[in-house]
Each structure stands twice: as C-alpha cells, then as structure tokens.
C-alpha cells in the first residue's frame, strides 16, 4: 500500500474506459440513423414529421448518456448496499404493471406516462436490478456455489421470470435466463448442477408447449407457439408467423455486399418488414448498408463486448466482475438473439437490439449498464 493514497486522492475516472462510452454513443448514432430510415417514408405518407421516431430516439439517447455518466460516477460498490432494495422495488413495479400497465401486442408490459407519448417498460429496468442483485448475492459466496446457494439464486431469477411470464413476454424471460446462466456459470456453479437444471428447464419448456395436448391449460399464447414453430419450419404459413422471418431475410439478403444506400432500401422504406424500428432494426442496416455495414456493426459490438470481458477480468472484486459478466451475458444474448432472429437462425422473440432499437427503456438501460461497466473499469485499481 505504497501508492494507494495517492491513487485514492486522484479521481478514479482517469482510469475509466472511455472508449466503451464512445462505442455506445457511435452505436446509438447508427441507431438513430436507422430509426429514421425505417420510418420516414411511412410517416411522410401519413402526413407526419418524417423524423418523429428519430427525434424521440435522440431524446432517449441523450437521457441514456446522462444515465451512463451518472452510473459511472458514483462508486459501484455502493450499489451493493442498494441491490436488494432496488430488486424489491423493480419486482413491485413488475407486479404493478400487471394491474396498471397498458396492453400492446397482447402483452401488458408498459406503464404509460401522462400524455400517452412515452411508456416505461419495467422489465428492462428489472434486468439491471437482477444483474446487480445477483452479482451481489453470488459475490458473497466467494467463487463457489453450493446447491443451496444456487437454489436461492434460481429463486431470485424465478420471481421476475414468473412476473414477466404473466405479461407475457417470452423474449425478455429468455434474457433473464441468459443473465442467470452467465453470472452463475462464472460465479462457480458446478457444471452438473447447471446441466441438471438445464434439463429441467427443457422439460418445462416442452411441457409448456404441449400443456394443452397433455390435458392442461394452454400455457403459451398461440402467436408465441406459432413463431417458434415458424422458426423451425420457415415454409410454414408464409403470410402468418413466417412472414416476419421471410421479409426480414429478404431485406437483409437484398442488401447484398454494399447495400442499397441509406434511405434507399425498399423493404425498409415501404414497411414490408414489421416492427422494423424496434425488434427488426437490424434489417434496415442489412438492406441499406449490406454485408459491409453488418460487419462494421458486429465489429463495434465485438469491441464493446471484448472491453467488458477484459474489465470483468481485470476487476479486483467479485461483485464488479460478476456485474460485468451479467452485463456481458445480457448484451451478448440480446445481440445474438436479435440479429440471429432477423437472419433466421434464431426464433422470433421480441427482444430489442441494444443501442439500435427504438425504445426509451431499453436504450436507457443499455447506457446505464455501460455506465456501470465503466464504473468498474475506473475503480479496478482500488481495493
């Protein structure tokens, strides 16, 4: 402890990984551009401001950047103390949304702010809360998870999973599973435990699919079941569930190597890909910027994930490392699942693409997580 005093006196932010923040801003700038290109034509057709969605997204990004800076500033170790209360608050919010939320696309997942222009999706914030709470919980176990502890951790995941199942929102549930798997794996859960629980998970999912055939109530909505079936058999019901898969693959494929150029993609312009500014935003990039654009985007994401990975490794306390792993798992899963879905290698679930998809809650949460990771990176030298 020769130098720590001097180091502590200095601002820890000089060690912060600013490149991570920069990448996040660049990604969200791309997101704004794609938001514009996938909505302007239809908005113009309807006589509205063609930049409506882009402007909204700019607002979300600005809020996100503020949140990121705030999250980076305060020592993340303080979060540990608030982890459980934050978890509790978000879970209450998830309960509340079932009663007071508004329903869209068959899911009751949003709180509506006065004025009806903005909605808040508590499940997005639950992701952060769960990451922090789970990281704090397993950090206390010191790198080894016994079965009892593991069960407690599963319980922490089970509560939000159950609440989100009631909304229902299959995609977001999967994100929680990914977060849990990532954090618990790195935190020292034994492989045989993970294997057995995975098996149970598979059995449960299959049972959910067939619950109506087995004589019970139908546990999955028909649309969800159809979407997953369509993933397994893309020829199935072209205008129904497979429509999304087909249209998004056509858009990406039509982009070719160099793309059609910004604002030039017909699939994108003419609203042929449903939900394009949100879940299918990647198709706009694929069509208008081609394989070159796709590769660049994946490189940016790869850089971001790599930085998080290194920060997790370099972190000198377990809570920081596990929080980074949680963020890493979440972002990885959302990126892979979302892009994989648009390219037809993953089933269709409503998961936003971090930084790109239109949406306040997901953008703010993604920036917040990056802020948290920067926070960890800044304080990696502290004891």
């Amino acid at each position, binding site marked *: 402890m020769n130098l720590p005093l001097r180091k502590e006196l200095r601002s820890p932010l000089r060690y912060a990984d600013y490149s991570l923040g920069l990448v996040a801003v660049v990604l969200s700038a791309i997101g704004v551009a794609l938001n514009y290109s996938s909505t302007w*034509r239809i908005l113009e057709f309807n006589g509205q401001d063609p930049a409506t969605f882009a402007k909204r997204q700019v607002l979300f990004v600005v809020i996100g950047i503020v949140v990121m800076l705030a999250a980076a500033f305060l020592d993340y170790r303080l979060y540990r103390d608030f982890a459980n209360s934050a978890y509790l608050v978000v879970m209450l919010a998830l309960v509340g949304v079932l009663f007071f939320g508004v329903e869209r696309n068959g899911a009751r997942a949003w709180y509506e702010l006065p004025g009806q222009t903005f909605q808040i999706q508590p499940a997005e914030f639950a992701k952060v809360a769960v990451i922090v709470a789970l990281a704090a919980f397993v950090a206390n176990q010191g790198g080894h998870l016994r079965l009892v502890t593991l069960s407690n951790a599963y319980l922490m995941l089970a509560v939000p999973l159950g609440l989100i199942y009631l909304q229902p929102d299959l995609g977001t549930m999967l994100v929680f599973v990914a977060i849990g798997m990532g954090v618990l794996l790195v935190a020292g859960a034994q492989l045989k435990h993970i294997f057995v629980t995975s098996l149970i998970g598979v059995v449960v999912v299959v049972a959910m699919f067939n619950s109506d055939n087995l004589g019970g109530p139908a546990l999955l909505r028909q649309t969800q079941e159809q979407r997953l079936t369509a993933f397994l058999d893309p020829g199935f019901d072209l205008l129904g569930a497979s429509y999304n898969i087909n249209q998004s693959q056509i858009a990406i494929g039509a982009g*070719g190597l160099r793309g059609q150029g910004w604002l030039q993609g017909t699939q994108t*312009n003419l609203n042929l890909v449903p939900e394009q500014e949100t879940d299918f935003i990647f198709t706009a990039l694929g*069509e208008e910027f081609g394989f070159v654009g796709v590769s660049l985007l994946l490189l940016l994401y790869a850089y971001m994930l790599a930085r998080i990975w290194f920060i997790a*490794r370099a972190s000198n306390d377990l809570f920081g490392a596990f929080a980074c792993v949680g963020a*890493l798992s979440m972002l990885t899963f959302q990126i892979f699942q979302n892009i*994989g879905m648009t390219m037809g290698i993953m089933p269709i679930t409503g998961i936003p693409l971090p930084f790109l998809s239109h949406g306040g809650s997901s953008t703010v949460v993604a920036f917040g997580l990056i802020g948290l990771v920067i926070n960890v990176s800044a304080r990696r030298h502290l004891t």
Partner: protein
Amino acid sequence: MNENLSRRLAFLGVLIIALFAALVTRAWYLQVLVAEEFSDQAVRNHVEIIVTQPTRGRILDRHGVVLADNIRTGIVAVDRSRYAPGQIDYVLEQLSQLLDIPALVLASRLDDKQTHPLAEKVVASGLDEYGLLRVAEKSLPGVEAKWAMSRTYPQHEIGAHVVGYVGAMSPGQQERLLKVGYLPSERVGKSGIEQIFEDDLHGKPGRTELEVDGTGRVHRVISEVPAEPGADIFVSIDADLQAATESYLRQGLIAARKTVSEDSGFFYPSIGGAAVVMDLRNGDVLAMASHPTFDPNWLVGGLTTAEYQSVFENPYAPGALNNRAIQGQYSPGSVFKLITALAGLEARLISPRAAYYDIGYFKIPDKYGCTGRCTFYNADKAPLGVVDLSSAITRSSDAYFYKVAHDLYWIRGEEQWAIQDMARLLGFASQSGVQLPFEKSGRIGDEDLKRRLFEANPEAYNPYGESSQWLPGDNINTGIGQGFVSATPVQLANAYATFANGGTLFSPNIVERVVSRSAEQFGESVIEFNPRIQRIVEFPEGSGVVREGLHGVASKSRRGTAWRAFDGYDSSGYAVAGKTGTAQAEGRNPVLQRKKEDSAVFIAWAPQHDPRYVVAVVMEEAGFGGEAAAPVARRIFEALRAYEQRWPDPQVAFIPPQPECPEIPEALRGHKAFIGYVPEGCPWGIEVPRANTPEDVDGDGIPDVEERD
C-alpha cells in the same frame, strides 16, 4: 482473481466469439452467397403489377355488319378456396335460389376442369344489374357479383363457322398464353377467325406497376402502359348473303328429307351440307355455309359436359362445330368431269366435236385383258345416244368419261396421269389457303395413294385383298369423281372459279383486312389481303367446248341435268353455267344403320359470259345433284343478283392469261397445221372464239350460244 474464475470467463469469451462467428457466417450467406434471389424477391415485394385486359377486336363483314362484339355482362364468380371441402353446398343452395339455376348445374360449373385452376369459376353470366344486386346484397363469402366484358355474337348462327367462337384456354394454351400476359380467366379463340387471328384480336394487355408498402398502400406509380385494344377483322363475307345462303341450304336439306330415294326406298336422311359463294374475279369468299350449325353465344360462357353433349354430340346433327365447307371431304362425282374433260383435251385424246355413242355403259375392250370389274354403267344405266364433249358434259354422260379416263390410262408415259395432274393444277389435294383453321386438303387418286391407303389400312380399303396396283378401273372411277377422289366444297368452288375466269387460281380470301384500334394507328389497316394468285393455269385448246357444255346444264332444250331446278329462272344477264354431281358415299350411315345415300353436288357460275360469282353446294345423303343441290344454288344466285346491286365494284384481280406464243414464220402464220400448237389468243394463232368473249355472229347483242337454248 482466482484461476477458476478466469477459466470460466475464458469459456464465456470463447462462447461469445463462436456466436459472433455464427452471425458473420450467416450474414455472408444471406448477403453474398444467395443475395440475388433475395433482391428479386424484394422487387416483387414492393412492386404490385396490375394487368388490364385489352378489349378484344371485333369481327365485321365486308360492309361493317358486326359479327362478333363485346358486351358488358353481369357474372357471378365463386372462389371455392374460401370453403372447406364439402362446405360449398350452402352457398350453392343460396345461389341456386337467387339465380334460379339448379344447384347441380352450379356445382358442375364449379368443377369445370377446362378453365385454369387459378381462374375464378364463373357459375352464372348474363345477369342485369338487378340480378347482380340480388346476389351482392347476400354478401356470401367467396361469391363475387360483378360486371365483366363478354364476347357476343349478335348475328347468332349466321357465319358461325367462319367467325368461330371463344372459350376457356386449353391446358396446352395456358402455358404459352399466360406468359404473354393473358389472364387465367380470359377466353381465347377456339375456331374460325377467332382462332386464326387470335393475336390480332387479342390486343396488348396494359400493365401498371405500383410501388406499395407492407400494408398495400400505394406510394407511387412506377410505370403505366395502357392496354391496347385488339384489331378489328373485316371478313369478305356479306352478312345478308351469308344469312340467305345458310337459310337456303337448310331449306334445301329439309326439302330433300321429304323425297324418297329410288335406291333404298327410304327418305333421304339429308343430314348436312355446305355451300360456298366466291367472287371468281378476286377469290373473295362472299358466303360460306355449313349445316348443321350452332350459335357461338352458347360456347362463350363455357358449357358443362352435359350441355356440350346435348348440343354437339347429337347423332342427328353430327359435327355441328365442323365447317364442312373446308373440312368436309366429299367425292365430287360428276362435277369432276370438268377435270377429266380438260385432261383429255390436254392429252389430245378428245376431239371435242367427235361423236360418241353412249350405250348406257362402257366395257373395257377385250384386247386390254380386263381383270376385275370390266363394265361400267351410267348412273341410271340409261343410254344417252350420240354425244360429243359438249353434250356429254351437259347431259352428264358417264360412259363418255369412262372412255376418256380408260384411254388416258393406256397412254403410257407422262400423260397417263393427265387427270391427276389437271386436278392438282386446279387446286385438288392441296389446301386452298383460305384464312381458316383446320382446312382439309382432300385427295386425288394415283398409284402412290392407292398403295399407301391399302398398306396403311387394309381392312377398310382392301377387304378382299385386291391388287394395290393402279388399275384401269381405278382411273375410270376417278374420271367421274368417284373412288380415290375427294375434295372440300371450297376446293370445288375454286376449281370451277379458275376455269370460269380463264385460268387464275386464287387462294380464297375470307379476311379482307385487319384494322388497328390502337391509339397510334386507329382506323388504319395493318394487314390487307389483296387477291392472292396461286398460279395461272393454261387450258388446252378446245376448252371452249367444255365451257359450252357447262353453259347447257340449266337449259331445258339442251337437256341439261339441272334444267328442272332452273325452270322459270330469270336468266337474262344472269344465266348460269355449271355441273351437277351425284356422288356415291362410301360406308354406312352410323345412325340409320344402312348404306349411305348419294351426296348431291352442284357447282355453277354466273353470269355465263361475264363470270363473276361461283356457287358450290354439297349436300350429304340428299340425292341427285340436279334435284337437291341445284335448287339451292338457284336461290343463292337469285339472292346474289339482288344483293349485287348494292355492292360497290369489287377490286378485280382477274388477270387474263397471257399466252406464250411460239415463234412462227410470218408466212406460215394462220395455217391450220398449227391448230393445237399455237395457244388461243396469240396474234398469229388460228382464230378460235374466246370462251368469255361470246360468239355473236348475227350481231343481235345476245350471244349465240344462249340463243340456241
């Protein structure tokens, strides 16, 4: 940081790298490897193509009377894909009540296999707006009541065989036509002018490309090509004359059914026939009738199998859809004697004025060592006494032409086939080239044909295992138009027209012109059929005598075979020249189950000395040419004389044959030694009266030949 943690982190890192690799690979596959397929799909996705059906061209007669037109009609179409199997019954029940059509009929129209599988099934047509409203207000799912364009034939059966009809495209046509922009529900020409001028009549479909978004809203019009209406076809038919011809033919056939055949003692069945009227100066077909006939309007909406059978498979009106004028192949009978006579003259075997004693039959002289049939009788075995070429034609002496054909047989060398050659020159055994589909060519018998027929189908042609060599008897039969000769009514009319006009063989024109209705060329003739000369035939010296013989056919004083039919006929300036024929038909009548009766044939032109029109009438199993067919021709000529007054002067393409005159020293010109060597019309030839410049020695203005009557 313990080692365990960093090992687990490394595992996570590898997993992430693997996932990213999967994404890049997939993107490479979609955007580079199979990108082309997707860009095609992307274009199809946002471009909606609307094909508009062009208005079909009309078919009009030479004066503009519309024979085929389009009307707006209310139709009821059913989309059966909207119903689970067996669930359509409810709708059919409802429609049956609304439309007053039995549900079974509706069901059979729905099952129609003729139309394209993608085409809507039209179960009812011809509705007025109240009918449409009655169906529409029921709002039956999958049932559409709407206006559509429909083909209509305002003259009904008049000219039906010439005009043809439209119907659903056959599976074979679908493949080709759908590629060139036809809609699956479109009707295409199935016969007649409708078929052969399908491309001109159809027009070009319009095509509008719209840019649409995912919800089907139109953002802009990418391109727009308006439909180009089909061209109008003007046929050379005169609708009034056509109606008269059809009517006279039908009345003639009905009259023949009331006469008793001397051969069998039964009434003549007189089931069908054909009549052709041509302008022999340019080959225009003025009327072309075929019986039994049909109303093409029946076929437009598509008939169910039962309806089709009841109308077109009626054994008492067989082959109503066939145009007998170009598809019926009949033994010409005695009308073929014109060809035999010309062949005999060509071979210099006939001396036109030489007397021949017709004893009622012709026996092949013993010196030729006859095998098989050796004695050939006149039709009624009656001896005609002394005849020359002229009266042999007028009175139709079989014996005279048996002898000519027999003698021709024994000329070894080129001229042995003089009859066959002359027949081919006059258009036998080859299609006339009239602009109608499915024309038959008939045949003319010779050695090759006989052998081919015997070998191809010995059971039908040679049941007794006779020699397949060409025997004298074969040539003798051919000489009076029996045996191995058959011709279509159009061919017969055309052969006589060629003889009458002095030797110009036309390809008959039944279409005058094709008039565009497109925006750029509106009203312009895009195709004009000028008279099409196939060849100029030179007739041998002495053909004037043949002509004289034909002039007598309607003459009572010259005992012409058709004089009774023309008794009381006003021949002033419109006298006819022609030939009767009574042809034995081979085989048995399939309905009556007895031997077929004779076909009646009559071909004539008028006026005698200024030939303008030729009329050919063929009536199946209707008796004697002079008794059954000639009266029909007479009434057609009477109609022609009346209608002709209203017609503008036709485009005359009659080209007098220009003889090739051999070089003869001036001193020798006019010497009678050159008779037969110098063609008629040569300046230094022997002055032989030109056939169509009537001999009028006494100068009273009436041709001498007519005066003799």
